[in-house]
């Protein structure tokens, strides 16, 4: 039976429309599809075949089964805020958009868990339970619009994961549609350590390549009794980064420990949420501790002492909640703020051992000079998670390419000191080749072997996460051929 209002001769479009049931649940005209040709990573673009909007798990399963049976590449998409291109339809995929599956299904305060659909927006969860004094801990900067399903796919982090962990530490159960359309439930009732391999842990952060999450049980936490936030201004980046190491080694576990350098400060001060940071400082630290109020002063004093030993120019605690919120708004909108001082920018996401901060920042500075591009640094310093922002102007020939190369060089600098190429944004399309900075071909094959168990025909979100065109795949094929030849 044809769906009313569909004007297409493509039988797949007609059949997909049939599954979702009405013309408002499918997009297939080229001009409408352009909005879906990339996500938060805009340097690669490709048009999808169609975008479909399922309303429930059964719809998703039917869509997936249809794509699988007909060898149509497909992928799932949340709010499209991903920064590594995980939702870009590289192969003209059918995009299964999860935005209509956006219900908060249940909250169980007694057992501290909530069940949400994947399209439910991160911050809405906290807002829905705040009146009872609870919150959902992972807080990526895009939390006002990103979806929890997307957070699971990317294992999203955030400023406060220094103390509370990233998404994977808060996921208790998942309902998943596998790439053949089968529905499985992992971590039933949100009870930890269910017998078997930890598929919850494996699926979280698999960047939508192993299955499509349709229901998520998350842990919710009680709000800390109190929070205290400190801002520390430094005349030397080196002093600021030494202070970070000193705070961690002093046995303090801040809820958040953020840093921005001079160029980043120039950006946020020119954008929508200026704080009035002094223009001539080289770096600031934004440090938050939380917990039992009676214990916080001692921690704050320790932090202030550490900063003073490292020649801090000024260090002060937020006096009001309004002031604290202003500081955080300034930080959380930091990436976008670069738009105020540069026509284009590229966000990177390396991680390093915390004690190597001064050395790596110095190397990034050298990279900046080498490529002739300004690089701002906004980062979760407490985790060693750097976000170098390479500023460029795409209108100038060659700058886009130079920015990509400079970004990659920053990741190499992180890998060189024993770090990694992504702390929270994922590999996606963007860092496929950089996977080789940290993994051997054998190690990459060990991972693609796992993908084959879930996604044997690689129809789901193909071309993401792993180097391609795959030198690895070729090696693997060679190995297999050898084996066959021998046997």
């Amino acid at each position, binding site marked *: 039976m044809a769906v009313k209002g569909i004007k297409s001769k493509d039988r797949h479009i007609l059949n997909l429309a049939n599954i979702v049931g009405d013309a408002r649940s499918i997009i297939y005209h080229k001009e409408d599809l352009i909005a879906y040709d990339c996500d938060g990573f805009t340097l690669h673009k490709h048009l999808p075949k169609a975008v479909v909007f399922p309303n429930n798990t059964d719809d998703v399963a039917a869509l997936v089964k249809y794509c699988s049976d007909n060898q149509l590449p497909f992928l799932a998409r949340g709010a499209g805020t991903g920064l590594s291109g995980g939702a870009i339809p590289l192969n003209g995929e059918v995009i299964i958009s999860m935005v209509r599956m956006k219900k908060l299904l249940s909250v169980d305060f007694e057992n501290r868990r909530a069940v949400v659909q994947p399209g439910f927006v991160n911050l809405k969860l906290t807002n829905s339970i705040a009146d009872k004094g609870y919150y959902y801990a992972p807080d990526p900067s895009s939390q006002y619009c990103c979806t929890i399903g997307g957070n699971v796919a990317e294992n999203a982090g955030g400023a406060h994961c220094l103390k509370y962990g990233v998404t994977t530490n808060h996921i208790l159960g998942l309902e998943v549609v596998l790439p053949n359309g089968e529905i499985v439930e992992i971590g039933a009732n949100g*009870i930890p350590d269910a017998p078997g391999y930890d598929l919850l842990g494996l699926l979280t952060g698999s960047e939508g390549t192993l299955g499509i999450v349709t229901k998520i049980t998350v842990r919710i936490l009680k709000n800390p009794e109190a929070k205290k936030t400190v801002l520390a201004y430094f005349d030397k980046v080196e002093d600021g980064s030494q202070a970070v190491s000193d705070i961690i080694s002093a*046995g303090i576990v801040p809820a958040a420990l953020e840093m921005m350098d001079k160029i980043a400060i120039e950006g946020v001060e020119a954008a929508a949420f200026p704080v009035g940071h002094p223009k001539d400082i080289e770096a600031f630290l934004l440090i938050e501790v939380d917990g039992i109020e009676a214990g916080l002063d001692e921690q704050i004093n320790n932090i202030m002492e550490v900063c003073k030993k490292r020649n801090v120019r000024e260090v002060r605690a937020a006096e009001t909640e309004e002031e604290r919120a202003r500081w955080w708004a300034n930080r959380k909108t930091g990436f976008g703020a670069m738009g105020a001082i540069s026509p284009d920018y590229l966000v990177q996401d390396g991680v390093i051992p915390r004690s190597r901060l001064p050395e790596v920042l110095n190397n990034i500075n050298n990279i900046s000079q080498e490529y002739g591009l300004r690089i701002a640094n906004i980062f979760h310093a407490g985790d060693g998670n750097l976000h170098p922002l390479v500023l460029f102007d795409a209108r100038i020939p060659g700058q886009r390419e130079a920015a990509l190369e400079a970004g990659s060089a920053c990741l190499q600098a992180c890998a060189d000191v024993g770090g990694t190429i992504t702390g929270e944004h994922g590999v996606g399309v963007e860092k496929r080749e950089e996977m080789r900075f940290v993994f051997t071909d054998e190690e990459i094959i060990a991972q693609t072997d796992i993908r084959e168990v879930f996604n044997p025909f690689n129809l789901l979100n193909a071309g993401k996460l792993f180097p391609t065109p795959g030198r690895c795949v070729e090696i693997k094929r060679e190995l297999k051929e050898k084996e066959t030849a021998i046997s």
Partner: protein
Amino acid sequence: MITAELLSEVKALIQEDRIVEGENDHLLGNNGLVKVYPQTEEEISAILKYANENGKKVFVEGNGTKRGFGGLSESADILLSLADYKGIVEHVVGDMTLTVKAGTNFKKLQDYLAEHKQKISLDPFHPEAATIGGIVSSNDSGPKRLGYGSSRDVVIGLRIVYPDGKVIRSGGRVVKNVAGYDMNKLFIGSMGTLGVFSEVTVKLRPLPKYESLILLFFPQGNMEEIKAFAQKLLDSTMEPVTLELLSPALSEGLTGQSCYTLAIGLEDVETSVQYQENFIKSIQPENTNMKILTLTDAQAFWNQFYSLHSLESESLITSASLKIGVVNMDVTQVMKESQLLGDSHHLEVQAHGGLGHGLCQVNLKGSKEDVVSAIQQMRETVAGLGGYVVIKHLPFALRQEVDTWGPKPAHFFLLEGIKSKVDPNKVLNPKRFVGGI
């Protein structure tokens, strides 16, 4: 193959004085015809490669504290012990990360870290004997999981020797990492069925500046009162690191008082701990008694707690240990059920469970038939609650009668698929895991 032949082949892989003939009558099974004690990763790799290419089976152990945990074959060809593969590879004090060889003793590790005012925030059972590799491999955790999480929250990197002898790294040495699949998770709790841990990298935490333990005794044993109190505490902004309910028999062994007891651990700076103590006093229910242990006294309590369940195997009395997972507040149901089973089956029962995380441990002692029957009954009850029962410790003979892991999950084909990708020849710990994996 006769053992002599196997022995001579193994001698080509590892120094002779690192090989012993296996003991074949161990009550807990999981034996090997030969037992080897490699000291290098190359040796581990050579042994696995040999086994993989020659159709041999390998069991893996650390120091043998989990020998009664799963396993349906009495003996493999080779029992690979990591007890001599030990030592710290790298401890970056300022980064609070630590890389150690898998056979390193947990208690010694914690003692060493304490000199730097740091710790691994895991509290497994039998820390004096257990190895870090065994703890992570079996995903063992204790009451402080409420405050600090479990292996999956602590392990940031692994070096794993695959069944074909290749060495694969997962994760890394940084505390935040989403490069590629989170393969660490796959190996944590995999019971050695996918690879042999060579090195484990963990993130560390500072030692708490102060700690205390509140023991709240409920002489009347009213479960509703216990639950109401626990909910009140959990709904407050207090931050207990344990909220463990102890059964009367367990509490008697630890505190001398035979009644349900809540062990509430507090770890923070002193002012914060004292503030929390005062809060808890202010909501102390009627008809309860309270005792507060601080610092070394609190630590002594926990040390005793972690080693209480004897690993000795006796032939006349059967001892079993169950790990039970339920929804947090259903811990009280599990505790009630274990008391009832103790009475109806003439068992010695010691049980405890975390009201903040839903994991319980129930230790049973009694006749063979009674233990088996009690486990089956407990499984039925817990299934009714939507939870699971895993048998952490049971003599080999009885593991044939009651499945260590319980029914296969509906997504078993995925687990099987992973196993056959990583270990197609089923070399490592065959039949040790869920559904005979």
